[in-house]
């Protein structure tokens, strides 16, 4: 891996924020597709992270995610974003069935002093690829969502963040006594993103 050293890329806070928010956009799309929140036929295949990824073509969902990632990158650049959670709930009862948890650790120095870091694009891509693969394969162990579901996204920010006009404060929408599976993490050297999915305990297994 001699080429690895030669392709060290400079990562700035801004670039890192872009990577993370873009990652979240793709991850959200992938979760919505794989968990069947929206119908299969509303997604198209694109190539990303060296994988075939699915993106929604539904205008409303698309604009929701675009607005979301735009706001996220703003917070990421300010180093104020601690965590993003994608919540899947039952449409009829509102019960939370799954929480896709992306916790973010930000390099303080990069935010405060504008220091940039080095890490190859390829390596980051490989790490993201591993997460995406895990999301796609999660259907093998997650309980079947056999009812209509809706999703929501929660952003955990620092307390001093001004609440944007289009946002409101929310409860954490936790699941009581959940099962949890930790997925891979990726690190841009400025933002470290840990992925974890928690889901409603399946009573079926306990019998």
């Amino acid at each position, binding site marked *: 891996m001699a080429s690895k050293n030669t392709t060290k890329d400079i990562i700035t806070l801004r670039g890192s924020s872009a990577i993370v928010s873009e990652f979240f956009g793709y991850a959200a799309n992938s979760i919505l597709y794989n968990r069947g929140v929206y119908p299969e036929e509303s997604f198209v295949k694109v190539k990303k992270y060296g994988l075939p990824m699915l993106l929604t073509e*539904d205008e409303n969902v698309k604009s929701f995610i675009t607005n979301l990632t735009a706001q996220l990158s703003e917070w990421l650049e300010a180093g104020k974003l601690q965590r993003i959670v994608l919540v899947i709930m039952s449409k009829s009862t509102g019960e939370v069935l799954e929480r896709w948890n992306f916790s973010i650790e930000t390099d303080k120095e990069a935010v405060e002093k504008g220091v940039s870091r080095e890490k190859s694009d390829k390596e980051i891509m490989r790490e993201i690829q591993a997460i995406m693969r895990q999301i796609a394969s999660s259907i093998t162990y997650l309980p079947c969502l056999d009812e209509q579901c*809706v999703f929501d*996204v*929660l952003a955990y920010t620092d307390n001093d963040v001004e609440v944007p006009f289009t946002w409101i404060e929310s409860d954490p929408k936790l699941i009581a006594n959940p099962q949890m599976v*930790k997925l891979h993490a990726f690190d841009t050297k400025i933002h470290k993103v840990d992925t974890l999915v928690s889901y409603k305990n399946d009573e079926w297994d306990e019998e």
Partner: protein
Amino acid sequence: MDAGRSSSSSSRYPLKETILQRKPSRDDLDRFIPNRSAMDMDFAQYMIAEARNGKENPLSNSPAKEAYRKQLAEVMNMNRTRILAFKNKPPVIESLFPEQASSFNQPKPVKPRRSIPQTSERTLDAPELVDDYYLNLLDWGSNNVLAIALGNTVYLWDASDSSTTELMTVDDDTGPITSVSWAPDGRHIAVGCNSSEVQLWDSFSNRRLRTLRGGHSSRVGSLAWNNQILTTGGMDGVIINNDVRIRDHIVEKYEGHQQEVCGLKWSSSGQQLASGGNDNILHIWDRSVASSNSTTQWLHRLEDHTAAVKALAWCPFQSNLLASGGGGSDRCIKFWNTHTGACLNSVDTGSQVCALLWNKNERELLSSHGFTQNQLTLWKYPSMVKMAELTGHTSRVLYMAQSPDGCTVASAAGDETLRFWNVFGTPEVAKPAPKSNPEPFANISRIR
């Protein structure tokens, strides 16, 4: 009383006075007594615990512990971060695909998963139960009374009060009993005997009403009721429709089997009869075809099974759908469209299929088996995914019967036990009984 006490307490009860004075002045405490209500004990606990965990045993943290800690942190940090969500919620799919969403939603509005007990609810002894694959010795009537034939005797077990009574015993020349079947009224019961006669009994008065003779030349191993018609299948391969009300009771003969008829079931509409024989053949007979001429031709002759066809079950939620199970060298459950005679599906179960029952409340099928597991298997229909395997019997599970409410299944096996399984869940309340699906103008056809 209260008022009088408090007003006079200061002068008359000095001991009480001090206490009474302290109580209201809770806020200005003169000593340092920590006020617990003002502390976030959970958070403090977490901070202590986490700090210790991190220092002392960073390696012993299992992923589960780690995850728990994370969750705890999440809960405890609730007030310390801001959780934000968009005001505008993401679009709900229903508005985009209205017709699809509604059709998807309607048939099952959030059905909670049902747990299936893996063990039998109750086990009763069934001594002298004849271990013969070709007989039908168990039936559960609409009056909630279970009839089981043990040797020469028919016993009735009342499921509502768990009482057992002996209905009748035949002598050794006539016995053993080879089949029992409740009439739809839940009062009368037909008993087939080894001697080829069939007896009709009134279970209320414990009285024999009549004996049907002359139809068969050998034992009667299968019985099926269709209103006033009692259909009997014999070892001679003949199937006879007996009108139990009239003197010359034999009204029809179905001749198509070369060997013993061991499975016999009328469809819920009473229009079609399925019969299975030891000659590996499954016949479908149609009643409207039958009435026109005396030597009746079958509607379908199905030769796909490679062993005796005993287990038969008409689907309660789809007319013209029949499930049939084959014996030891066949081991298959097959599904038929009895209208066209097409085989819809075939599943190799790996074991002799002795009996089949449909769940009346869910799309599920229960099969009972012989060697090697002697189990009851619950299948999802139509996917035929195994939902549960119920073991407990130590010999092949020859007979199964379903309670009138459809929830409980009784199984009798060669190990001489009768077991009750709560396998089909609880019925939905106020659901019209799907089984009683009378043919149109049923009352008219009854007038002869």
